[in-house]
């Protein structure tokens, strides 16, 4: 049973990938979906056995490689962390599979798509069930590869190609960190399986008491943790390496749901949680983790507020939520982080899939400015997205409330990172703001759709709505149900009630603010020209002067300031520009000018093949010139050398 949870997704991936032509689109959909559903059921059983009955299971499969000092096994480790991750991954993935049979219907390459989805799920399961870092790395690279394949699913689109390459390459930056961390761990601990490392770490504390006789060097531990964190930064899209995440929206919507809700971005957080004992040994690394997580949460929230693409808003909100998870990891509350991860998976999958449903309904239009007024046409999707958003902003009694408020309270409790608390709280406000903004612009405001599109808006088929319904139940109840299981060991900090309600108040404030602002603006400016309304709201009335009749109006300094701020946030703090301009471009230049032109084509060729052949050819030409064809020259040469020969012979 334990191996079945791995085996089934692999089987469905292989069958659907290799024999997709035989089983057809419908067959591929049914096969892969049912395989993943069974896998989800099996992982529920595993959850029952390993968490509720608290009996962790280790399955040693076979010996992988074996040298004098180091042995690696293929082994599976099912403890409570793995079981919870398994539930999250398989259930969300199963729903995404079912969803994509409906969403992708009509696409000519459904078997391939389902195969990739299943392969992704399989590799993610490999990642979470591995018992050592090497095997974890297989899953780690595998999900990167699958994200490439999935983002690039519509491979004829150049933007999808670019986004996929970006995702793969930026992930690779983090992967280097993970590899270096693995090497360093091997050098320090002599092993790569978790059980050995963590037992050595527990020895380490003992060693500290007795003058550090046993154990690991503190500095190298810090290096290991920072390198591991670099890996997590790449995978979980933390500040600095986050730019791939919004671009990954080029893939189909179920892919975004899978990558951003349950699997890929959570892998980085999973790595931190799994390496928790290591991180515990290095306070410095923990502080770095907290600060970067808080910055990411804040950054992504500010950016999400001004995005106009429906999916990008949700993508930045993912980035922000993952920032929360990382932040609370830095405060050593790994179970809270895991809890948030679990809750987040449900409501973010719900949000993405509902967004997909909306996009499906409005004929593949993703710009929120061109939507609006869908409340009457697709009330079911509206309800789903409302549940998801309320859960996301931490509305009481919904899933997000249980983890998000706890995270903020725990952050408040650690007085030395008050900075992170305020960033986190502020991003809670912004989260509420952009969630409400999304709902308002998509559903409530006057419509900006074309008439022919608006008349055709409809709810989708059952295989799109059913996953939404199930995820909505998840978004409502998972937090309450999972609370005792996951965070039973977290002691809520002793803080006053006034502080305790701050996040809630901020969230409600943000939501109300968004509603009031957008409502008022709509009423003031009337129902004409929704695009212009929107432009006015965000105070960029002069950005697109083609839309605006006040083209020649004198800009007030406030407008200019708003314009600058809006552009700054809308372009995601100019990270893409900075990275492209200062890093990528220079690396390219270096690659072309220095390594290619100077070293490869220059130095190496000159002292290498080209230079040697040049010298040899000119030498032989000079020598062959001595053979002039003139007999007297030959005679002279013969005599000279005969003289040399004779005299040399006599000398010697």
């Amino acid at each position, binding site marked *: 049973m334990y191996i079945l949870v791995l085996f089934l997704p692999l089987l469905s991936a292989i069958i659907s990938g290799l024999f997709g032509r035989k089983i057809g689109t419908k067959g591929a959909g049914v096969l892969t979906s049912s395989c993943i559903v069974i896998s989800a059921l099996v992982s529920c059983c595993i959850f029952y056995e390993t968490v509720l009955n608290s009996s962790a299971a280790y399955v040693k499969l076979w010996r992988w490689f074996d040298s004098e000092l180091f042995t690696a096994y293929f082994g599976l480790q099912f403890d409570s962390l793995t079981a919870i991750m398994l539930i999250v991954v398989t259930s969300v993935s199963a729903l995404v599979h079912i969803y994509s049979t409906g969403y992708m219907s009509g696409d000519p390459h459904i078997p391939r798509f389902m195969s990739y989805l299943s392969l992704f799920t399989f590799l993610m399961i490999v990642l979470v069930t591995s018992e050592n870092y090497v095997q974890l790395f297989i899953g780690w690279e595998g999900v990167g590869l699958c994200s490439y394949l999935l983002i690039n699913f519509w491979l004829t689109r150049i933007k999808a190609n670019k986004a996929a390459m970006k995702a793969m390459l930026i992930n690779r930056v983090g992967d280097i960190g993970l590899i270096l961390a693995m090497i360093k761990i091997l050098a320090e601990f002599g092993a790569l399986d978790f059980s050995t490392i963590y037992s050595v770490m527990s020895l380490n504390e003992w060693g500290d008491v007795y003058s550090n006789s046993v154990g690991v060097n503190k500095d190298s531990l810090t290096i290991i943790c920072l390198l591991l964190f670099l890996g997590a930064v790449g995978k979980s899209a933390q500040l600095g390496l986050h730019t791939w995440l919004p671009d990954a929206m080029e893939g189909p919507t179920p892919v975004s749901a899978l990558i951003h809700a349950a699997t890929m971005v959570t892998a980085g957080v999973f790595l931190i949680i799994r390496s928790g004992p290591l991180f515990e040994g290095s306070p410095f690394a923990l502080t770095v983790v907290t600060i970067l997580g808080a910055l990411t949460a804040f950054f992504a929230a500010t950016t999400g507020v001004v995005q106009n693409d429906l999916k990008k808003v949700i993508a930045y909100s993912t980035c922000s939520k993952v920032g929360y998870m990382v932040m609370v990891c830095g405060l050593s509350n790994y179970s809270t982080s895991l809890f948030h991860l679990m809750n987040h998976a449900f409501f973010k999958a719900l949000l993405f899939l509902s967004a997909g449903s909306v996009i499906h309904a409005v004929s593949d239009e993703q710009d929120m400015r061109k939507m609006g007024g869908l409340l009457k046409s697709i009330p079911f999707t509206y309800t789903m997205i409302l549940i998801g958003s309320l859960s996301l902003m931490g509305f009481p009694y919904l899933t997000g409330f249980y983890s998000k408020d706890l995270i903020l309270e725990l952050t408040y409790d650690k007085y030395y990172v008050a900075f992170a608390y305020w960033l986190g709280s502020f991003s809670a406000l912004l989260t509420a703001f952009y969630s409400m903004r999304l709902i308002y612009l998509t559903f409530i405001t006057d419509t900006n759709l074309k008439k022919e599109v608006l008349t055709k808006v409809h709810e989708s088929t059952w295989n799109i709505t059913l996953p939404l319904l199930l995820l909505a139940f998840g978004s409502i109840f998972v937090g309450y149900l999972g609370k005792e299981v996951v965070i039973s060991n977290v002691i809520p900090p002793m803080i006053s009630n006034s502080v305790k309600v701050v996040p809630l108040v901020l969230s409600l404030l943000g939501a109300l603010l968004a509603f009031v602002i957008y409502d008022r603006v709509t009423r003031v400016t009337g129902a004409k020209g929704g695009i212009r309304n929107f432009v006015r709201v965000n105070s960029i009335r002069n950005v697109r002067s083609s839309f605006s009749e006040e083209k020649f109006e004198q800009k007030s300094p406030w407008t200019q300031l708003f314009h600058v701020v809006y552009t700054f946030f809308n372009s995601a703090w100019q990270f893409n520009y900075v990275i492209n301009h200062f890093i990528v471009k220079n690396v390219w230049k270096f690659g072309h000018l220095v390594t290619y032109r100077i070293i490869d084509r220059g130095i190496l060729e000159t002292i290498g093949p080209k230079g040697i052949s040049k010298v040899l050819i000119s030498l032989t030409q000079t020598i*062959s010139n001595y053979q*002039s*064809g*003139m007999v*007297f020259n030959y*005679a002279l040469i013969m*005599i000279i050398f005969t003289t040399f020969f004779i005299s040399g012979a006599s000398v010697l």
Partner: protein
Amino acid sequence: MYYEYLTVGVILFIFGVLGIVLNRSNLIIMLMSIELMLLAIAFLFLINSIVIDNLIGEIFTLMVLTVAAAESAIGLAILVAYYRVRGTIAVKSLNLLRG
């Protein structure tokens, strides 16, 4: 005694060599220079056979004379054949086989 004649032989030989090396105009002069060199060699053989009182030098000289006669006959034949083909016997024009 007779040692001073050795110098004559050597000088004759050097003249022959110089005749080959410096001559650029006429192929016949080259043949004549070769004859001169062979003559010098034969002369040296004779002197040495007298100096060391040994007959082998003279026998050798006879052989050298024979070889020289045959060589000049073949050389002249080549020269005639060459002249028939090229119409000139200048050494300078003998450069078809340059490297």
